[in-house]
């Protein structure tokens, strides 16, 4: 009954993408505006959006590492947009109108970035300057270990120097050269600008000063802002949060999760809001949300869980239009390479291959996700388009559903295959036609899949997984747990550190998907020391290929990484669901939805009067 869209943010390392800074300038597509609503635009109006199974609990844009609540982004992005605004017209490119920079130049062999800031103002009239960037950099420099958005080795540790030649220019010296697309898309697109003139203080009654320039001061400011940022009772009243540079201001926030935006009258950007208010109203699960939609009254925009897709015709009759948007990320079954017995099995590539051959992804897309899902052929979803989808992935990936191949593979490695039963190892040993290192004679090929309960589509998917795996004699036991319980037993493992005490208990896990940014790179997930590499996958070749995508600028490097990952199966690939939305038909500007910014850009929405 829950949507898991927000669960996702938990898992991801920040993938990176650089790209398109140059392309974006030329490709200035209109954001939104694709909706074919006819009629005259009306000024003002209130839109009510449904917020299901979660709500924000922190308003400070740089979230602490312990706060993985994806709803916070929904709250803060409208108030403090990213430096490089992700997503334009639904495409994975930087949006030039809403970004805070007017020009981005990489020079000196891509080791120096020169950022020209737009001459915008904060909502209190003070200009946005390069000092605001150094404020962010200083805070993060001394507190990055406490920042949720930190990816091992990237910003701010990869910066050797930041200088501000003038009030609107920032020059960043990096410690090494990076792929510009990667850096812009995945690093600069995760940093907001923060008002140094209002927030550089260490206490509510204290004065603003340059505290951030010293280590102690930066820590004090960070702690102060984090404490203020988690005080839900004051989100709407604290003077700190009234200083914004985005199109919206927060007018009201209740502890139930209900909150309201009103336009920031001093917004400097071109997409000034037409609506007079946007309200988010919370629902604990989708039953109440669907009921409200069916009665057609108080909700204007809402998501529809995939197992309720068949209610769409009824919703259309209530005056709603439907839109769908693929979610940027990869859905997977996560293998634990360090599980005591199962880990040895999972380390064998041929076993993972057999398991992947036995997943009928097409059927899962059609039946469990009602057709609204990415096929899941490899690490990159097809929505990313031409420059990211290798021909191999587009053709269906290396492991299309094929039980015969799975059985052949297992037999070729010395397994006694019992379709419908459980395979056992007939030929233990390390030779090419034997089971593999550490696998004993007669060992059964059986795993327990730990999954997060609450989403019906996932329940169906996992049941189907269990069913099709048994066609090859791989026995899967299903074990469902609430998501929070699952998290607490997963442990802090990665390729480098896998203490037995915490990495022991689970064998396979499924809880949602790992989110990608505009550049669907594997950094943060598949490299050995990645903090998102919970299964402990480690491969020098993979590390090398990921580095090539981060540091080089050739696009063929990306395909090389992608195909290698698709073949090597650090994760068992699964289809990734799309989101389906309904919105009132007289509301224009809602589509195309932007999957990189929490899906909604209300600043370009407006009500229409039907053309007479």
């Amino acid at each position: 009954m829950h949507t898991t869209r927000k669960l996702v943010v938990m898992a991801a390392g920040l993938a990176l993408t650089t790209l398109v800074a140059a392309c974006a300038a030329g490709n200035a597509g209109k954001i939104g505006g694709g909706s074919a609503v006819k009629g005259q635009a009306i000024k003002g109006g209130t839109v009510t959006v449904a917020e299901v199974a979660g709500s924000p609990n922190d308003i400070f844009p740089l979230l602490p590492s312990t706060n993985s609540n994806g709803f916070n982004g929904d709250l803060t992005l409208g108030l403090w947009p990213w430096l490089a605004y992700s997503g334009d017209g639904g495409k994975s490119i930087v949006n030039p109108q809403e970004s805070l920079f007017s020009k981005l130049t990489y020079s000196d062999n891509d080791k120096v970035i020169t950022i020209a800031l737009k001459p915008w103002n904060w909502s209190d009239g003070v200009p946005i300057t390069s000092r605001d960037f150094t404020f962010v950099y200083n805070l993060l420099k001394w507190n990055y270990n406490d920042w949720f958005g930190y990816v091992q080795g990237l910003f701010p540790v990869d910066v050797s120097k930041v200088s501000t030649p003038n009030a609107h220019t920032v020059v960043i010296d990096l410690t090494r050269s990076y792929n510009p697309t990667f850096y812009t898309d995945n690093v600069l697109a995760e940093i907001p600008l923060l008002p140094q003139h209002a927030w550089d203080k260490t206490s509510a009654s204290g004065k603003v000063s340059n505290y951030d320039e010293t280590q102690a001061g930066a820590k004090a400011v960070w702690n102060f802002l984090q404490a203020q940022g988690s005080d839900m009772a004051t989100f709407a009243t604290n003077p700190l949060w009234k200083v914004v540079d985005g199109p919206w201001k927060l007018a009201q926030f209740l502890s139930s999760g209900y909150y309201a935006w009103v336009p920031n009258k001093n917004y400097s950007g071109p997409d000034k809001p037409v609506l007079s208010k946007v309200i988010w109203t919370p629902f604990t699960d989708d039953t109440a949300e669907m009921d409200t939609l069916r009665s057609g009254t108080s909700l204007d925009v809402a998501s529809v869980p995939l197992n309720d897709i068949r209610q769409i015709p009824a919703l259309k009759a209530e005056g709603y239009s439907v839109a769908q948007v693929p979610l940027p990320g990869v859905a997977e079954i996560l293998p634990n390479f360090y599980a005591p017995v199962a880990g040895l099995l999972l380390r064998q590539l041929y076993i993972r291959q057999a398991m992947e051959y036995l997943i009928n992804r097409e059927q899962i897309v059609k039946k469990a996700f009602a057709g609204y899902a990415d096929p899941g052929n490899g690490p990159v979803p097809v929505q990313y388009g031409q420059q990211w989808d290798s021909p191999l992935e587009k053709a269906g990936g290396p492991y299309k559903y094929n039980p015969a191949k799975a059985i052949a593979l297992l037999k070729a490695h010395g397994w006694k295959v019992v379709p419908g039963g459980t395979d056992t190892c007939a030929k233990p040993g390390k030779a090419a036609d034997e089971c593999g290192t550490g696998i004993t004679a007669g060992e059964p090929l059986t795993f327990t899949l730990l999954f997060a309960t609450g989403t019906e589509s996932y329940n169906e998917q996992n049941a189907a997984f269990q069913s099709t795996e048994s066609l090859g004699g791989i026995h899967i036991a299903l074990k469902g747990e609430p998501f929070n319980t699952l998290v607490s037993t997963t442990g802090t493992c990665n390729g480098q550190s896998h203490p037995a005490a915490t990495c022991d208990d689970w064998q396979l896990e499924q809880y949602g998907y790992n989110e990608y940014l505009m550049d669907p790179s594997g950094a943060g997930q598949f490299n050995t020391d990645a903090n998102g590499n919970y299964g402990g996958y480690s491969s020098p070749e993979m590390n090398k290929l990921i580095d090539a995508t981060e540091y080089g600028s050739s696009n063929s490097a990306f395909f090389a990484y992608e195909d290698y990952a698709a073949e090597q199966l650090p994760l068992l690939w699964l289809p990734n669901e799309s989101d389906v939305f309904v919105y009132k038909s007289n509301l224009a500007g809602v589509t195309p939805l932007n999957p990189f910014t929490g899906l909604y850009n209300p600043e370009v929405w407006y009500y229409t009067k039907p053309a007479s």
Partner: protein
Amino acid sequence: MQSEHATAPEPLAALPEGGEVTSRTGGRNLGLHDFLHNKRAMGGCAVVLLLVLFCFVGPLIYRTNQITVNLNNANLPPGGGHPLGTDEYGIDILGRLMVGGQSSLELGFAVAIASTVIGALYGAISGMLGGIADAFLMRIVDTLLAVPTFILLLIVASMFTLNLTTIILLLTLLSWPYVCRLVRAQVLSLRSREFVQASTVMGSTRMRILFRHMVPNTFNIFIVTATFAVADSIYALSALSFLGLGPPPPFADWGTMLTYGVNDLFDSYPWEVYPPLIVLVVTVLAFRQIGDALNDIASARSSIR
């Protein structure tokens, strides 16, 4: 659910002198004749019997594959080999009703028997002991009763992943206090009866009195409470599943079947909603009818002077 429905045994709790039962009517004979001739009670029993047959004998006759998931067959309407259609996993619904019913009925019976036995023993012993021991034991019971059952269920369900056994244990734990109170009240009122005093004078130990006299006279309470306990526990499990805290798939019982179909109430797949709903309501209704009829018999007999 006990937190939202006033359970019928409560009026007996409010009046500590539970029915006026004399020792002449042995508990086992209490109203058996009346019971057999009570239309409601017999109706309820007939339904229960049918349900038990349906759930336990049914699958032997009507064989379906309840284990293999086949998404290609998902959500098929009734017809073509599936009299009640298939559910979202492609599993035959009629078959699932039978097998799911096994879980529901096992749960109900297990909880009813266990909680009644435990509660009765606890209550009887506490009543017989009297004094400080009794006061202490009853405070423990009061503590358990102070928190609504459903709330405690939610707390535990949020911490542990439930399966049938844990739920049975849990519901037993949460149900026995109710029986205990009633039995103790009965025991207390019986203690002051002449026949017990006579027994004591004649030298019977307390345990002997307990088992020879008290138990038969409290038998009607057992039965009544037990039947209500069956209904309440089946009910509690379905509510828990509805809130998303019940046992995860592949566990099947009527409540979980309902949960998925619930949003389809309006249209689309009515065959996934109405069969489990009807069976659930009929089951709960049947048990409550039996309990209610027994209650009537017991109180009717008690008002015969």
